[in-house]
């Protein structure tokens, strides 16, 4: 959004009637927008509101339901204090499944990065070797990304059985789609000049990618992988709900058994773990960005 510069604004305030008429003649659309354009924002808001009202009606929202639900939530919050699973042995179990969750997130992200890295070069316009390969990889990545992590977990449980390994594979598969797309976008955004430099010295396609593109995209890719590790710690906390390891199984069991103190304990542990990983990955990301700058 550009803001009119001060001198222009000054002149406008001192404009006489003639110059206003001139302005009107020169910019008719600024003074007399077509009615439809002027009505458009109101139309959009009205449509959005109508759809929202329809949805509220369809999903049977009602003040009474909302009030009883909120009151029940309040009761639960009271029952959550103090957050404690009932004994040291139980607490140790929760810490262990939390460790499992972090492990699932870490290994899943690492594997996803390793697999998405080469595929991204196929999916990027400036590094792929054929348009058909690019189209196929892109659509493949879209398909993989369209299926939620929980569904992948259910599919992998068929292969390796219940347990955290299925979780690792689920995180890997669903992130493969997302990271592949992000990496290929980073590659496409890379500056052409280093590539042209390598090409001008007679470097092959492979060398152009290795010395022209790779040094530019590596810090970006590392940053994105770290960011995904962080967000995967959150999502791998839930795949236990379908039996793929981690703290999710414990959490859903506690909720179904109305053990609110245990629920609160698990949620607080997840919050702490995510905060720690957030801090570490922030430091690492900053180091990577600085390192990248130093190399340039």
């Amino acid at each position, binding site marked *: *959004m550009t803001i009119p510069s001060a001198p222009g604004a000054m002149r406008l305030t001192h404009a006489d009637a003639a110059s206003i008429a001139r302005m009107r003649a020169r910019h008719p659309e600024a003074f007399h927008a077509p009615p439809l354009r002027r009505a458009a924002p109101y139309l959009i808001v009205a449509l959005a509101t109508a759809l929202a009202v329809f949805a509220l009606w369809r999903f049977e929202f009602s003040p009474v339901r909302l009030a009883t639900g909120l009151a029940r939530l309040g009761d639960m919050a009271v029952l959550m204090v103090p957050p404690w699973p009932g004994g040291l042995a139980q607490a140790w179990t929760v810490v262990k499944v939390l460790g499992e969750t972090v492990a699932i997130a870490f290994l899943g992200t690492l594997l996803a990065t390793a697999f998405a890295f080469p595929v991204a070069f196929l999916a990027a316009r400036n590094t792929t070797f054929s348009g058909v390969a690019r189209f196929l990889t892109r659509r493949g990545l879209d*398909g993989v990304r369209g299926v939620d992590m929980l569904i992948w977990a*259910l599919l992998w449980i068929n292969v390796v059985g219940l347990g955290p390994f299925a979780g690792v594979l689920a995180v890997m598969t669903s992130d493969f789609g997302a990271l592949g797309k992000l990496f290929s976008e980073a590659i496409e955004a890379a500056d052409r000049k280093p590539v042209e430099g390598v090409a001008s010295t007679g470097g092959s396609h492979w060398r152009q990618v290795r010395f022209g593109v790779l040094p530019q995209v590596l810090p970006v890719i590392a940053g994105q992988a770290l960011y995904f590790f962080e967000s995967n710690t959150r999502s791998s906390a839930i795949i236990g709900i379908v039996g793929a390891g981690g703290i999710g199984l414990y959490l859903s069991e506690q909720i179904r058994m109305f053990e609110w103190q245990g629920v609160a304990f698990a949620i607080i542990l997840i919050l702490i773990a995510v905060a720690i990983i957030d801090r570490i990955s922030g430091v690492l990301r900053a180091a990577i960005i600085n390192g990248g700058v130093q190399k340039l």
Partner: protein
Amino acid sequence: MGSQADHARHWREVQRRKRGHTLIFCAGLAAATLWSAWMSDVNLSKLFGNIGNFFGYFDRILTLDSGPAMGRRVWTAPGEWLWGLDKWLPLLADTLLMAYLGTLLGALGALALCFAPARNLTPNPWARVAARRFLEFCRTVPEIVFALIFVVAFGLGPMAGVLAIAVHTAGALGKQFSEVVENIDMKPVEGLMASGAARWPTIRFAVIPQILSNVVSYCLMRFEINVRGASVMGFVGAGGIGQDLIEAIRKFYYADVSALLLLIVLCVCVIDFLSEKLRHALLGREAHA
């Protein structure tokens, strides 16, 4: 002044330090990998022994398992395969509607909360920290966990799912919005404050016009994410198409699994495509303005 030998030594020194850093990094990565492999019961022999099951599963879900066309590939008898379309399409529409309402309510919440954590608009550090922690809580607790709890509080059905999506969305969008707010041009804000405007008029006339296009763009992106999220809300009884999907998976209705997955993936792809077009159109108009 450093001589050539000095330079060479310095260069070797720098290289050595860099190699040392790389070595430490690789060792750390290897240790973390081994630890997580041990923690998560990685069993490669099981994986490679049963990898056939993975492709076998796709083979089975793509084969009709009952009816007159039994044993044939699903796409040879689309009528048989998509038999439940009359039931599934409304469920899919419900899923989209859940994502829409959840995104809308969450965005409204985020918009109400996003000015408090912004450094440039809220000088009080306590209010800032409190707002920030609250948003962090909303987005760190996964939406399925909120859904599990809300199903107990509000009863089974899409209402719990919508509220879960809304709370999570408020946390995620609130952070993104407040970052946008921190990056605005402060001159209009100063202008309004100089003329004696109160907090809300300042925000309405100096901040909102600057952040609106980014806000809309983030909302559309979050809607894409929420469509995916809404498709699994049914796993915990919080409405949408997920209920039918998990039933089909658990009860081994193979052909139904592939039909439902196809519908979900198609729907997600179409939404992604449309929202990307819309976002580019919005940002394009912004660039021209």
